[in-house]
């Protein structure tokens, strides 16, 4: 099996408070990896270390290595901006740009890369919206504000926006927590479909969701990676008592 991301000896802080402790993790390519754990355990921080967003939070600090395709993204000469173009992110609450149209939202990342060719943009926007099954719903309203869509559509728009720049990895931070069940189900189907082409890491505190969408699952507790294995094994045959207690709902 080939690994897209290898996390080695990763530690992260908020000011003096250590929120991630000595994380080692190998994330397989073109698969969905779920990170589960009780709130406050460092799940979000962990994925924000993978696109170098954590260091932008007030008091955020990181040590250790995160290898993307074998290269350390925390090496001195690496520009975080380039990393973030390879590693896309979808947030907990849908955050489309309200001052931009649906079209411009999807094209936003492309324009940052300097692409201005209208026909090329049209093509990628259409492709990204089709990937997220949004095309049929919005193709006649491409000029409307991104904020005018429903919550679920907004989140799929955000996914399309992330896909448009052709990332290699997509990080999702509890992408369905602000959505109703129907919209959530659509996003989950979408994640399954995307996993054929992309490496996806999804943070969730919904264990059923992790079981449904992911191939691998890591259980994080108080900043430590307690267990990481195939999702099936984690849910059917956890190695540690702590994991078992968590997935059977004894705490969290």
């Amino acid at each position, binding site marked *: 099996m080939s690994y897209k991301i290898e996390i080695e000896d990763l530690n992260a802080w908020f000011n003096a408070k250590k929120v991630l402790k000595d994380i080692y993790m190998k994330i397989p390519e073109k698969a969905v990896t779920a990170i589960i754990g009780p709130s406050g355990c460092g799940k979000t921080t962990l994925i924000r270390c993978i*696109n170098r*967003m954590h260091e*932008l939070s*007030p008091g955020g600090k990181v040590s250790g290595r995160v290898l993307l395709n074998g290269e350390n993204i925390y090496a001195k000469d690496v520009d975080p*901006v*380039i990393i*973030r*173009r390879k590693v*896309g*992110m979808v*947030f907990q*609450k849908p*955050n*489309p*740009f*309200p*001052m931009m149209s649906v079209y411009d939202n999807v094209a*936003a*990342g492309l324009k*940052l*890369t300097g692409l201005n060719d209208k026909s090329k943009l049209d093509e990628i926007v259409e492709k990204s919206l089709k990937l997220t099954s949004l095309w049929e719903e919005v193709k006649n309203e491409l000029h409307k504000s991104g*904020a005018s869509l429903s919550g679920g559509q907004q989140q799929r728009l*955000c996914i399309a*926006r*992330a896909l448009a*720049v052709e990332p290699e990895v997509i990080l999702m931070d509890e992408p369905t927590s602000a959505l109703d069940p129907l919209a959530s189900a659509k996003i989950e189907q979408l994640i399954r479909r995307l996993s054929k082409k992309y490496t996806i890491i999804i943070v969730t505190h919904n264990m059923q969701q992790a079981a449904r969408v992911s191939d691998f699952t890591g259980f994080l507790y108080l900043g430590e990676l307690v267990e990481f294995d195939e999702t099936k094994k984690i849910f059917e045959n956890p190695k540690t008592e702590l994991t078992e207690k968590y997935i059977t709902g004894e705490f969290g």
Partner: protein
Amino acid sequence: MDKLFNGFLALIACNVFVILFLMLYKILEGARLSLQTYGFSFFWGASWEPFPPTPDMQPSFGVLPLIQGTLVTSAMALLLATPISLGIGLTLSEFSPKRLNFLVSFLVELLAAIPSVIYGLWGIFILIPFLQNHIYPALQATFGFIPLFQESIRGPCVLTGSIVLAVMIIPTISAISRDVFAAVPDSQREAIIALGATRWETARMVMSYARSGVIGAIILGLGRAVGETMAITMVIGNSFNLFNSLFDPSYTLASIIANEFTEASSPPVYISALIEVGLVLFVLNLAINAFAIVIVWQTMKRVKGS
């Protein structure tokens, strides 16, 4: 007791209604004589003759040069101050570390705290000699082919007035734009950063998100520039003429009131004309501010709400 107290508060809070109404009413009343005598020619006329050369002539008043001086200096001040102020607003809300912010905000507040008359003093004795000896000749040498930069260089002139006004409105525009930038939700910043935006590209997104608030800030700056009195009076040259060159002296609505009001005891139409100048300034300023405040308020509400 509660009712009594609330009624008392409401009564006091009505002070603004009374003040603004009385102000408008009294100034209109004071300007009536001039309004009746000169009508619209007051706005299009370009002569200011309270004491006509021969006794058989009537005094004449027309404020076109004052309007020109006021609007041109204010507009140029905006041109100069806006990029600088937006830069400061962005520095404070996006770029600089929190600890530095405290100091910088304080310094920008000081810039706002310095009295107009001291800006004027600085303008007369320090800025004008510097501009006249070092900057203006170079400007004329470079842009002399444009009519606006022709004619002989005067220290107190339209350009000097604009520069001093620009310095004075920078704190206004920067403080408001900082506030509207800071009100942009972090989720928007994260969205664009995660797409691989640089710090500058992120800042541009913030500006576009808050653009209506920025426009409000700029218009409020315009309101401040239009009403500014002492500093501009001290550096603009106070010459009642329509100007052709930025190096010509000029005059503004506010300046002529400051210069002539206390000496305009007679004829009665003279003081009434000066009050009408005040009325023009008042109405102009009301129109600008009433508009700008609504824009800033709505932006803050929209930005914070989403």
